[in-house]
């Protein structure tokens, strides 16, 4: 009896303490009101809105008033012919992209680190960061223009070697989509992706290099035994972040690069959600929301799993949270 009384007393005290603290810091809460209202409205209310994935959404009845249908939309998607296609395309494209851009950016950072002349290094960095700021629309527009077999750069160069002839239209070949998507991404972001590695490399203790030099290690050996190990923690964090988004291919670029020829290869989950939910005339919002939710959940699980594995392997040092 007395024990429970004391616990309620301390709980009361604590609650009072919290209340007192809040009163003392009321100005800070004033600052937080607008951002918090925004967060709740535009992040948490839509999270509540995912219930339409389990309902048959009718605009007239609203989200709350529509009828529950359980897992119908999910089952419909899993059984549809688009399930294999969109999931397959998404996984294929993002894995291809990850397998190329992840190692390449590490290699490129190591190479940039080998540049001795500081001015030249600065020029290289300025040049290679530049494409990062080109918008997706312009990037895809450039791709289309340059690969045009008649008036594009690709056609022009082809005709240097085969006068009077026109090359095969790469854009009209379905299976070239993957390569165009991935390599244009690397063109755009390889330089930018090295920033974080360059920063890690700048933290290498020069004494390590000096000691290795005195012991007769070549520059390549020093890259392998000094520079690369320094990059590993950063690299594993980057790998975690990238693996978490392996089930998501950005909507913007995939949608812009789609055409009637390559849709077998280019239809990814995000574009399919947009098309079924908002793009077409048919009202399939619930169905689209179900696909989106499915994708979100998989992404979340992936991120948590990869993070867990990395934490275990590194003994708690390499993890996001």
């Amino acid at each position, binding site marked *: 009896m007395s024990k429970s009384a004391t616990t309620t007393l301390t709980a009361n005290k604590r609650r009072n303490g919290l209340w007192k603290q809040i009163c003392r810091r009321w100005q*800070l809460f004033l*600052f937080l009101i607008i951002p918090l209202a925004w967060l709740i409205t535009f992040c948490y209310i839509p999270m509540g809105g995912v219930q339409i994935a389990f309902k048959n959404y009718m605009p007239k009845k609203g989200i709350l008033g529509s009828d529950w249908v359980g897992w119908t939309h999910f089952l419909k998607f899993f059984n549809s012919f688009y399930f294999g296609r969109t999931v397959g395309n998404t996984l294929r494209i993002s894995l291809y992209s990850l397998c190329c851009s992840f190692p390449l950016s590490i290699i490129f950072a190591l190479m940039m680190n080998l540049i001795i002349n500081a001015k030249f290094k600065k020029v290289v960095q300025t040049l290679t960061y530049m494409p990062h700021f080109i918008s997706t629309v312009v990037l895809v527009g450039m791709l289309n223009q340059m690969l045009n077999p008649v008036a594009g750069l690709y056609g022009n160069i082809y005709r240097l070697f085969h006068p009077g002839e026109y090359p095969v239209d790469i854009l009209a070949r379905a299976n070239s989509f993957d390569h165009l998507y991935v390599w244009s991404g690397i063109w755009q972001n390889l330089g930018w992706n090295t920033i974080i590695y360059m920063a890690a490399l700048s933290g290498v203790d020069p004494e390590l290099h000096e000691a290795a030099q005195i012991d007769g290690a070549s520059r390549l050996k020093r890259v392998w035994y000094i520079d690369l190990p320094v990059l590993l923690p950063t690299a594993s964090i980057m790998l975690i972040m990238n693996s978490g988004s392996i089930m998501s291919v950005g909507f913007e670029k995939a949608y812009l690069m789609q055409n009637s020829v390559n849709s077998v290869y280019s239809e990814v989950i995000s574009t399919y959600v947009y098309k079924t939910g908002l793009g077409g005339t048919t009202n399939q919002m619930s169905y689209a929301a179900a696909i989106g939710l499915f994708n979100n959940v998989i992404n979340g699980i992936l991120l948590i799993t990869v993070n867990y594995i990395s934490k275990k392997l590194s003994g708690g040092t390499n993890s996001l*949270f």
Partner: protein
Amino acid sequence: MAAKVVNARKIKHPLEDRILYAVVYTIIILFCIVVLYPIIFVVSASFSSGTEVQLGHVYLWPVKPSLDGYEAVFSHKNVMNGYRNTLFYTLAGTTINVIITVICAYPLSRRDMPMRGFFMFLYTFTMFFGGGLIPTYLLVNSIGMNNTIWALLIPGAMSVYNMIITRTFFQNSVPVELLEASQIDGCSDARYFFSVLLPLSQAVISVISLYYAVGHWNSYFSALIYLRKVELQPLQLVLRNILLATRISLNEFEDPDLMDGMVGLEFLVKYALIVVSTAPIMCLYPFVQKFFAKGVMLGSVKG
């Protein structure tokens, strides 16, 4: 110091190393050419004459220089309008973004903020899970923002990632002694924010402003889903409609007759459009480059 340099020079000469440097420098120069060449080509093509572009005579420098492409672009009805809209969205959007981000990051950066961990969790959780496209669209639709300028300004009013960058800066780069000193002098929490913290945070504020501004300038997705009125559409959406169209209708120009006789107009217009829409960012870029790089670094420090 001098001894060190001499020393380094003596050791740096093994043949093995020289081969490595030669290979690395070659690869880096090749990559720079690969990055630069398409950009130069687009600029050159946009300044060439339509006939030469269509015949495919442009390789590196403009052939028969002309400004036809730019004339056509600037007489296109939607382009100038899109340009004005984008300027507005970028200025207004960035202002809103920065204000909301900063006033959110400040309380969350204070160690004496009650329930700070809980609020931080609320924000970071949204980085890993969200409602998704359809529920967000329905919400924006239901509060009547659809097809208004607000759809581009309010739903994306803050990026949690940038907020965390700002918060980390407030925590790590502004000495906590300043807060203690001003509290002893009887400074309120609001006064501290405006008179001490903000003036010291120009670095992070410029970084996030740049991030937001580039984001607004380059984005087309929200406009694609929310804005159907042509007069509200930003440049990127106008660009998309023109760049990805196979034919350009002459009616879209203010003076269709002028454009009618122009050979290779479509190619020229597209090249010129790419230049016109990207030029502002590219001109600004060398000056702000160090800020961008700094931002990546700020974000990588966990607070």
